[in-house]
């Protein structure tokens, strides 16, 4: 049975990370030094374009950096959480825990 939650913990929730796919990307990056595009696509079970879109939103928010190496099919796109991204993610995670406590 679901119940509504309220309180000041809601203030800690980050609107950028309220989207499940973006939260999942940041969760993988929280536990990783880096993650490649293909790994994230498989983990999230999303299309290339969807992952690119979510990644671009997080990059625009300053939450992750994207680096590319090589070109064409053999090229690698790698994602890394920024310090600001990790801080926002941890705040969001803490707010969720507070909401359920």
């Amino acid at each position, binding site marked *: 049975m*679901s*119940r*509504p*939650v309220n309180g000041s913990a*809601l203030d800690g*929730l980050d609107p950028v990370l309220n989207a*499940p796919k973006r*939260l*999942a*990307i*940041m*969760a*993988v990056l*929280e*536990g*990783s*030094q*880096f*993650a*490649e595009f*293909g*790994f994230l696509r498989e*983990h999230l079970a999303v299309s290339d374009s969807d992952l690119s879109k979510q990644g671009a939103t997080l990059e625009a928010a300053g939450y992750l950096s994207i680096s590319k190496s090589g070109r064409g099919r053999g090229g690698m796109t790698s994602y890394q959480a920024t310090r600001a991204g990790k801080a926002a993610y941890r705040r969001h*995670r803490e707010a*969720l*825990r507070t*909401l*359920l406590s």
Partner: protein
Amino acid sequence: MESHEARDQLHEIERGEAASWLHFAGHERWLPLGFGTWAGTFVLTMGLLDGALRSLAMLALIAAPLAYVAWDRARRPVYPQGPMPHELRRSSWALVVLSLGIALLSPSVYFAAGVWVAAATTALATAPAVELYGRIYASDAGRVRRRLA
């Protein structure tokens, strides 16, 4: 936000944070043999060489695992950092215990039977220890997967 949404998000967080650690389960078939050879060579270097030659050989022996870690990091699509899922702590303890066991066994055999027997014993003990650690890690990773499924 509803409580079930918060719960779903926390589940996704746990799944995401564990992903890189789960990817780490499993190792190449040659790794136990490689580590065994490395450990045996280490004992031979300590027992047979001295002076500058031993220092050079020790440098090479220290560089080898560092090179392995660098190569391993470069080839993986993800590399873990931060706290590991609690189920995997058992494999960390296993690694510590196995390493300590070999660290005690090796000099004991060295003083009792000489450098060549110690090198062979160390190599023969290290290889299955690495294999065992890999299996414990894989088993623990399976427990994490089942919990987060």
